């Protein structure tokens, strides 16, 4: 029990929670934006992988960190455009298209990585983002080191959640987007072009997924290796459902999830040798499934999610 309390009371745990939550938050917000406009984007896992690779590779070959971060976002946006052409213009199955984008984006990322980065015993590294102390707040006892001594992308992710919440529920464009996800025919009757809204949502949402990947290689770690995304994209898709498609709750969901993940990581070291580490590693995935089971019926799904919109066709 004392060990448990020690873990919970350490600022290190809470600092780790924000760090673990950041890529999940970027990814969840990205998927949420796409789904609010009516498109399920299962490309997320691959787009995160590609973002992680291209962001890292840009910095590795001389770009500064923010440029790498932006390039990852841009690459994500391009995959979003591809997804949009297939699912919005052609109206193809969003499930299969998304998986196709994931398979393509991740294998493409591995291909480029293997092609341009020489195989070495230890993977080459870059100098990642350093934590920035928020003046004043970071010197608060406990709370300071836990929450106000993070790397810049973490602050960006939290700010984005708040901005998106405002955007979706307080601006005309946000309303247009939600309407497109609920009923594109009605949106069109209001003079909104659902096609353009969905294109925009997919490109922007996928750019956020690219950033989610870039955070992994530019802040959480300092190198890239294949399969490093480890299903985080799929966890984000579950978190979208858990958050009932609301950015504010996505922030809470990502934090809650990251708390369990950070906690199990520390428990794992405390209990190593007693309980096999694989049990702990399973927890995030099982937790996601449980969250889905609890929330799926309760959450209000955007009504037109996964339904292609074709003008003049029902």
């Amino acid at each position: 029990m004392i060990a448990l309390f020690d873990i919970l009371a350490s600022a290190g745990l809470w600092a780790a929670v924000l760090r673990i939550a950041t890529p999940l938050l970027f990814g969840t917000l990205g998927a949420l934006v796409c789904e609010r406009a009516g498109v399920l984007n299962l490309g997320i896992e691959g787009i995160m992988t590609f973002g992680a690779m291209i962001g890292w590779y840009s910095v590795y070959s001389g770009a500064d960190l923010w440029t790498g971060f932006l390039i990852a976002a841009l690459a994500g946006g391009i995959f979003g455009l591809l997804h949009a052409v297939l699912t919005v213009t052609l109206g193809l199955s969003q499930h299969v298209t998304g998986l196709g984008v994931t398979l393509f984006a991740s294998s493409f990322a591995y291909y480029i990585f293997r092609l341009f980065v020489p195989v070495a015993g230890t993977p080459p590294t870059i100098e990642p983002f350093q934590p920035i102390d928020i003046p004043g707040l970071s010197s608060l006892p406990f709370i300071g080191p836990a929450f106000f001594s993070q790397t810049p992308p973490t602050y960006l992710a939290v700010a984005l959640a708040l901005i998106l919440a405002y955007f979706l529920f307080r601006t005309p464009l946000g309303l247009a987007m939600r309407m497109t996800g609920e009923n594109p025919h009605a949106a069109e009757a209001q003079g909104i072009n659902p096609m353009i809204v969905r294109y925009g949502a997919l490109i922007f949402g996928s750019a956020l997924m690219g950033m989610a990947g870039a955070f992994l290689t530019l802040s959480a770690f300092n190198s890239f290796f294949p399969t490093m995304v480890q299903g985080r994209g799929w966890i984000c898709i579950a978190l979208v459902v858990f958050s009932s498609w609301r950015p504010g709750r996505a922030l809470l969901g990502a934090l809650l999830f990251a708390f369990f993940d950070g906690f199990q990581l520390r428990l794992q070291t405390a209990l190593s040798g007693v309980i096999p580490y694989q049990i702990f590693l399973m927890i995030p995935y099982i937790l996601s499934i449980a969250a889905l089971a609890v929330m799926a019926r309760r959450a209000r799904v955007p009504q037109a999610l996964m339904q292609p919109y074709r003008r003049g066709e029902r």
Partner: protein
Amino acid sequence: MRFERREHRSPTLIVAAPLLAVLIALALAGVLIAIAGAPVPEAYWHILTGAFGSRLSATETLTRAAPLILTGLAAAVAFRARLWNIGGEGQFYLGAITVAGASAHLLGGLPSLVQIPLLLVLGAMAGMVLLLVPLWLRLRFSVDEVVTTLLLNFVALLFVSLLIDTVLKDPLAFGWPQSESVADAAMLPKLLARSRLHIGIIIAVVLAILVHLVQSRTAFGMQSRAAGLNPSGAAFAGVPLGITLVKVACISGGLAGVAGAIEVMGVQGYVTTNLSPGYGYSGIVVAMLANLNPLGVVLAALFAATMFVGADSMSRSMGIPTYIADVTVALSLLSMLIALFFTQYRIAR
């Protein structure tokens, strides 16, 4: 650009679609090979000879095709009923570890003729169980099975890793994480001496034919198709949706489980956590390339196996990363989706 529905789906186009898709994918992958600075025609020649140029390589390609046929069938059967089973990878591993554990600890003493069929059934059952969980979640809590099957892939792999680290760990493997080996009597007979080719490919093709017969000749085949095309219409016509989906899940999960089983019993005899180079995921591409047709799955799996085996050998001789095979296979899925679209629609003038 606007599209209009064709009055009739063009049968020529439906047959041409996969060929077109593969050609487009190969052309696009050619661009990537060119970026790597290698001569493209030579690279493709190396892939072709690498996959079929010798007795060894041809048997290797067929060996690789066997699990791909089965995971492809698993996806095709499920997708036809709109059951999005993306968990083939996890079902594969669960089938594999079940076979290894059962043969090493329970059935190892039985003669081949009894043990092999028993193990295949056990492998299938393991795959089934792993798919019935997400199906239950869908039917009971309306949870989308795409995400749950995907997440369960990671759980299954960790579970396998746990078992080969603990109860099923091979004590003779010098601490290397691998499972105990199956009994000699559990190894599938070789088709050709001095090769890795085993009768798994025959099992896979026979199962493809069986699935084809079930789908085209039985009421259940019709019902599963109807459940996919129009669930409410099918329910109205008296199709028991829940039971139909459970049966579909049993077949789909079972096929993926068998894929894992034959891979263990046919090739290396024990389980490691890199037993599958993504067979479950490639199976999805195989199923789509075949337009969900069980016999087409065999051909599509051969294409994918050719790419994987050929690219391995091309990579060794030309220094192009082997991932080019994965890129090509993924691109062929995307171009197949587009090609299928144009069997139904045309560009409006």
